[in-house]
């Protein structure tokens, strides 16, 4: 899993597993994770906070995709999906919502899905706070980390969950 494949995987092959690198400091992401975990899926989903060493082990190039901006998902054969396509892939994994994923992936709907996902990702902390969704962790990011500043958790309030 940690080895980088030398050949480009077949994009039409259904994945065997899906790694979801989510933001542990976002209550909305946590809610989405709980919801996805409650769904019956065609293949297993693995949730890993993007800022953990485990995520780096699974995907050494993770930081190049800037997972702090928009959610990143990776298949077992190292295909990367980000933003709206990652959401489509998560829905595609579920038994109940696969037809919706196929509809959303149509050229007429995908641009709207991308815009909505972008807006939600950009305002996820605000939305979490509005919906009173508590994140699983609100740990402080290292100051030299590229995501520092992208998150509204300031160093003074970083130890308490977002309200």
């Amino acid at each position, binding site marked *: 899993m940690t080895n*980088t*494949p030398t050949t*480009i*995987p077949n*994009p*039409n*092959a*259904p*994945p065997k597993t899906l790694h979801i690198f989510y933001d542990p400091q976002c209550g909305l992401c946590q809610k989405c994770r709980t919801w996805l975990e409650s769904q019956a899926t*065609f293949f297993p989903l693995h949730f890993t906070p993007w800022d953990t060493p485990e995520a780096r082990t699974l*995907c*050494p*190039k*993770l930081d190049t*995709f800037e997972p702090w901006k928009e959610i990143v998902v*990776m*298949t077992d054969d*190292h*295909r*990367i*999906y*980000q*933003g709206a*396509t*990652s959401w*489509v*892939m998560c829905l*595609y994994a579920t038994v109940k919502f*696969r*037809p919706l*994923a*196929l509809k*959303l*992936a149509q050229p007429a709907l*995908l641009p709207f899905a991308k815009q909505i996902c972008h807006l939600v990702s950009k305002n996820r902390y605000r939305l979490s706070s509005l919906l009173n969704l508590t994140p699983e962790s609100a740990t402080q990011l290292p100051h030299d980390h590229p995501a520092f500043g992208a998150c509204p958790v300031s160093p003074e309030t970083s130890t308490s969950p977002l309200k």
Partner: protein
Amino acid sequence: MNLTVITYCLYLPISIALTVWVAKTLHKNGRIFLVDCFHGNTDLADSVNHLLVVGFYLINLGFVTLFLKLGLPPINAGAVFEELSSKLGVVLLVLGAMHFFNIFLFNKMRKRAQLRHEPPPVPPTAHA
């Protein structure tokens, strides 16, 4: 034998024959859908096909027998044909509705089975 009994004697064999004909058509042509649904598992497809046909027979024959009673006894040969055609017309419509419902079921099962093997609907953003 009065005209009412003659109507019954004509109604029942025609309705039953129509039910058998539609059921046999469903059984014969629905099999290929079910084999596709169950990924070539012909035993399972045949079993489901048989169960569906049994359900079809029960519902339709139940309806045909319940619908047997005539409102007013026919007074002449013309009235026998009128009664018979109205009864058989309703039976044919019910058979048609049941037939389309079965096709709908076959198609739904087939689509659900195909969904499992759908490739990812979006291309990857990148490769890690």
